[in-house]
């Protein structure tokens, strides 16, 4: 399939999922009415549901899914390993730790931007750590071990913050947020995260050519004119912006960045650069559908989106590890 056609189809999927996310929920709203409500038509109650409840989480699911998809594709391309993903390698956990620190000290109440900035700083440290531990083109085992190490470190520090939390209520609030989800997110969250996510996604999209060249290894890429130091800096910055801001408002939503590039890689002819935009669109679609499922599976309450993606993603990850083990004697 030609790349343009693939991107067009993925865009249609994402738009359809976006519309479905506005329409479906405990109260079913038909598509025309939902779109009307977005533009200020229809009865007050309907407008309230669509604009105040569904629109923010729909926008967030779209943006966060795109961020997770493109960052997964970028990390995999850069590390040349199909098992790299923000959640697996601990970048999400590090971002979550950054946000927990902000929660813990109550910084978000004084300065709302502290939340995404905390997530961003944490994610940036996480990417650096993984890079320092696993290097480039390292073996799958090294990468996974690096992920285990970063996840463990971030988890330990997060647990420390939880155990020292001022009140049980604060502990509960942090835990619930860490499970990952888009329940009760408002337009404030959208405005807090969206600019960072957009900037990060844009930065990651500029990596396409460098990631293509890295297919042949670092020396070959450098000899083709790729600025490796600049590429690495943009990868860290883009991932930190996109994943850090996503984690700060939605907690840890794992495996989207693992599953989506894996499903689309063959369709873009295995070119890591071409996988970036496709994975952003695919990630947005998957996250929108996941959030929809999280709302609809149980009738009396919602499942956390992060829990749902982990339930689906973890077995998938397991299968990929087995596949990688067969390939690496």
């Amino acid at each position, binding site marked *: 399939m030609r790349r343009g056609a693939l991107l067009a189809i993925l865009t249609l999927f994402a738009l359809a999922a976006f519309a479905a996310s506005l329409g479906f929920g405990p109260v079913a709203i038909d598509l025309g009415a939902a779109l009307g409500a977005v533009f200020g038509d229809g009865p007050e109650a309907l407008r309230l549901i669509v604009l105040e409840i569904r629109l923010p989480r729909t926008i967030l699911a779209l943006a966060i899914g795109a961020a997770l998809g493109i960052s997964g594709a970028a990390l995999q391309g850069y590390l*040349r390993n199909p098992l790299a993903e923000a959640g697996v390698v601990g970048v999400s956990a590090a971002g979550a730790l950054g946000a927990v620190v902000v929660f813990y000290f109550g910084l978000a109440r004084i300065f709302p931007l502290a939340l995404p900035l905390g997530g961003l700083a944490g994610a940036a440290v996480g990417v650096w750590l993984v890079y320092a531990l696993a290097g480039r*083109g390292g073996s799958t085992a090294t990468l996974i071990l690096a992920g285990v190490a970063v996840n463990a470190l971030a988890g330990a520090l997060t647990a420390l913050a939880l155990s020292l939390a001022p009140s049980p209520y604060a502990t509960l609030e942090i835990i619930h947020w860490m499970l990952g989800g888009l329940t009760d997110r408002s337009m404030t969250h959208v405005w807090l995260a969206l600019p960072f996510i957009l900037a990060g996604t844009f930065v990651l999209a500029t990596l396409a*050519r460098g990631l*293509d*060249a*890295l*297919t*042949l*290894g670092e*020396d*070959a890429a*450098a*000899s*083709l*004119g*790729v*600025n490796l130091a600049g590429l690495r800096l943009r990868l860290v910055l883009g991932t930190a912006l996109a994943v850090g801001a996503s984690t700060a408002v939605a907690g840890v939503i794992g495996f989207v960045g693992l599953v989506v590039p894996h499903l689309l*890689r063959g369709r873009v*002819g*295995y*070119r*890591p650069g071409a996988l970036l935009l496709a994975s952003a669109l695919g990630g947005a679609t998957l996250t929108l559908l996941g959030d929809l499922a999280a709302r609809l599976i149980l009738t009396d309450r919602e499942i956390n989106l992060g829990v749902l993606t982990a339930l689906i993603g973890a077995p998938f990850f397991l299968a990929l590890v087995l596949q990688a083990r067969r390939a690496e004697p």
Partner: protein
Amino acid sequence: MTRLAADGVTVRLGARVALDRVSLAVEAGEFVGLIGPNGAGKTTLLRALAGLVEPAAGRVVLDARPLAAIGRRDRARRLGYLPQDGTIHWALPVADVVLMGRLPHLGAWDRPGEGDRAIADDAMAALDIADLAARAATRLSGGEKARVLLARALAGAPEILLADEPVSGLDPYHRLEVMEHLAGLAATGTGVVVVLHDLALAARFCRRLVLLDRGRRAAEGAPADVLTSELLASVYRIEAVRGRHEGAEYVLPWRRVPSSSS
């Protein structure tokens, strides 16, 4: 005429001095073999020539301009580099791998055009791999992969090609094939520097050899002057059968020289 030269280059890798004041020049149309035992600094010298490692002392110049002063893209267009580690990390079609040779010739947001594809197709045809165009690059035999990677380097139409061990792991037929291509490239005006472990191939194909030993240049000159019994014994610690066939020198490593220190 294009001329790439390392001038008294010293390279440190960590605490180790990998290259110690080594000079080497290659001009358009020359075919230079870079030989030496393991760890002699061949790859490091080639990487320095390609601008991939910064010399601690000395400098590398391309047409009298320091390499460091030439822009990344411009340098990439003029110097081709074929690394020793020929890993292709993703299952791209062979045609896309070869097309990557055109990257330095594209603007920041350009996609390869018809002209680029035609050049890549020519490179594939020259190396007899046109029928592999749609094959996944991870599913190639050693000989096929060597030719695909060489085609990638040729697609960039470099003025100087630096190839690190392009024949390692190949059977005799494909070794000769790759060497013939490189010699043909030199004959049509490209400057070629090739790192070789196979002394027979080095003697047979290269007009000039540079012998490295523990980071220093031990000898330079025509194969007959470099592959002498004395140098083979002192640098490689081997004894070789030597002779001439069809007007060319040949060398066949025969036995190790007992080490004098042990």
